[in-house]
């Protein structure tokens, strides 16, 4: 059946990550069975996570993402200063901080947009050096950037597959002839699966509202079924109803697909309803890392503004 080709690429990429994950924690028993089962990553993912959904197990596992002492400088601006952070399998991490705190820069380093000046990034325990977002995506890292990074002049399927188009194989492969119908079909399916409401999948993104664009960007990153989703202010600049819709989408991804996430938001209500833990950046430094059930919004605001003394930071 025609649906095989493009998806298989993803599956292979993904299974590689799973393999790394398993090497990283030999104590867990579910590895072998799933390693053999290379056909559907969605299923596999669920199977894997349901076995270690309890907190104790999560704590012993190799984190999906480890950022160690990362620094980044733009000219005279020290955007990030020795920042470390961990995200575990299935964890939803809120990343908060004032404007200019370095949140987007951190996301972009993880996503392969910038190389860090110092420090390292590990995926499933393996140190990685991304030279482009393409590299990061090979490791199952999907990103919704603050500016969305959609091509307004293209339609939804084109945006979904931008940079990794499905092409006709065989002898024609070097021509990179796109499988337009197939891409449209899959994008449509993804949009429907996630119950995203947009006017028409074949209309240019230009004609969509801010909320619809945001939904498209989130749906695109969900579509590729990565293991780590990075979301930079996914509800900023949206109306109440629209941001509710995006929140619904994210919760859905978190509960049903068990994808790990880092969510940047200024809206603590959203952070609270979505996240398991919260890290706070302030002037390029990480000043706090707290579990949601061990803190209060007031305390987090204190960390953000600097009113609270540094606590729980690493």
């Amino acid at each position, binding site marked *: 059946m025609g649906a095989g080709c493009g998806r298989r690429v993803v599956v292979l990429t993904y299974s590689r990550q799973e393999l790394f994950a398993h090497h990283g924690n030999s104590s867990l028993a579910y590895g072998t069975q799933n390693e053999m089962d290379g056909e559907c990553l969605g299923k596999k993912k669920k199977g894997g996570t349901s076995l270690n959904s309890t907190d104790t197990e999560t704590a012993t596992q190799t984190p999906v993402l480890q950022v160690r002492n990362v620094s980044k400088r733009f000219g005279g601006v020290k955007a990030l200063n020795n920042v470390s952070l961990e995200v575990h399998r299935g964890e939803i991490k809120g990343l908060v901080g004032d404007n200019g705190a370095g949140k987007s820069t951190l996301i972009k380093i993880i996503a392969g947009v910038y190389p860090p000046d110092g420090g390292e990034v590990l995926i499933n325990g393996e140190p990685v050096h991304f030279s482009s*977002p393409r590299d990061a995506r090979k490791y199952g890292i999907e990103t919704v950037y603050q500016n969305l990074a959609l091509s307004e*002049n*293209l339609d939804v399927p084109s945006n979904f597959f931008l940079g990794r188009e499905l092409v006709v194989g065989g002898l024609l492969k070097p021509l990179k002839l796109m499988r337009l119908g197939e891409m449209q079909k899959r994008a449509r399916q993804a949009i429907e699966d996630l119950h995203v409401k947009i*006017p028409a999948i074949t*209309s240019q993104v230009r004609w969509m509202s801010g909320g619809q664009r945001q939904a498209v960007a989130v749906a695109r990153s969900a579509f590729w079924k990565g293991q780590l989703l990075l979301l930079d202010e996914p509800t900023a600049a949206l109306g109440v109803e629209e941001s509710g819709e995006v929140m619904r989408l994210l919760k859905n991804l978190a509960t049903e697909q068990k994808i790990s996430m880092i969510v940047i938001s200024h809206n603590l209500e959203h952070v609270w309803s979505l996240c398991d833990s919260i890290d706070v950046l302030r002037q390029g430094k990480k000043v706090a890392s707290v579990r949601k059930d061990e803190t209060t919004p007031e305390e987090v605001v204190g960390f953000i503004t600097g009113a609270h003394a540094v606590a729980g930071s690493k």
Partner: protein
Amino acid sequence: MNKSVNNVKPEKSLTQSFFILWDRVGILLVFLVVCLIFGILTPRFFHPLNIINVIRQVSIIGVIAVGMTFVILLGLIDLSVGSIVAFTGMIAAALQVKWGGGLFLSITIPLLVGTGIGFFNGYVSTKGNIHPFIVTLGTMSIFRGATLLVAQGRPISGMNPEFRYIGGGMVGAIPFPVILFIGSVIFAGWILKRTVFGRYTYSIGGNPEAALLSGIQVDSHKVKCFCILGFLGGLSGLILTSRLNSAEMLAGSGYELDVIGAVIIGGTSLFGGEGGVYGTLVGALLMGSVTNGLNLLGVQPYWQMIVRGSILIAALLMDRLKRRFLEQ
């Protein structure tokens, strides 16, 4: 699948719908009206010999305009096309007449040289982070000078009989250059619509940052598009030298205006990301018909220059208006 497209309509205002419709058929209508007017003013306009003459003339500008469509779709520009035509045409002539190259070399080397100039334009502007407007202004002068150097003060005439087929041959009733032109339109149209290369071209023109964040190698794609334009500039140089049976020192001067004009009039946005090569086909035909019509009417060349420049500015204003209404 297409029925859902109509559902979008409520999102668009009346003006926006007008500009979308204009994009589809506007320029074609203008073209037909212009032809009709010339046809009424001077009956010779619709004479078959004249039509063949027009489309043959259009082909020389047209093949370059096809390449220019790629570059303008990226939101970039190339002013050196006239000099590419002159230089490659001169090389082709020198190879045959002065340097004793055969037919094969006098076709392939100019095409390679054209591609190489395109590569230079693209590479210097992307790596050096200089707007191609400036880089190609430089190469425009460089290769005009190089043309004069090769020519050593006089045009080179007397091409091989086989070589003369490129610009002068006929396939049935259709001039060979027209086949080259239409062929390149169809091929480019196919690339833009169906291949990843085309998709990246639109993506980079629409939102270069998004393209970069999607892992597209933006710079190398730009260089490739300049190479395509350089290659087609070389092809145009071959056609021109072949048709005139001579490589003139001032060949191709002013082509940039006609070529860019054809692309913009054809609805490709100077800001990138919108348009296509079939619009360019109509744009080139329109530019060619206006020139020809004015010639037939005996309008002085000075006036023609004024008219062509005005058409270009009108098309640019239309583009600007279109953008403003589409983006609000």
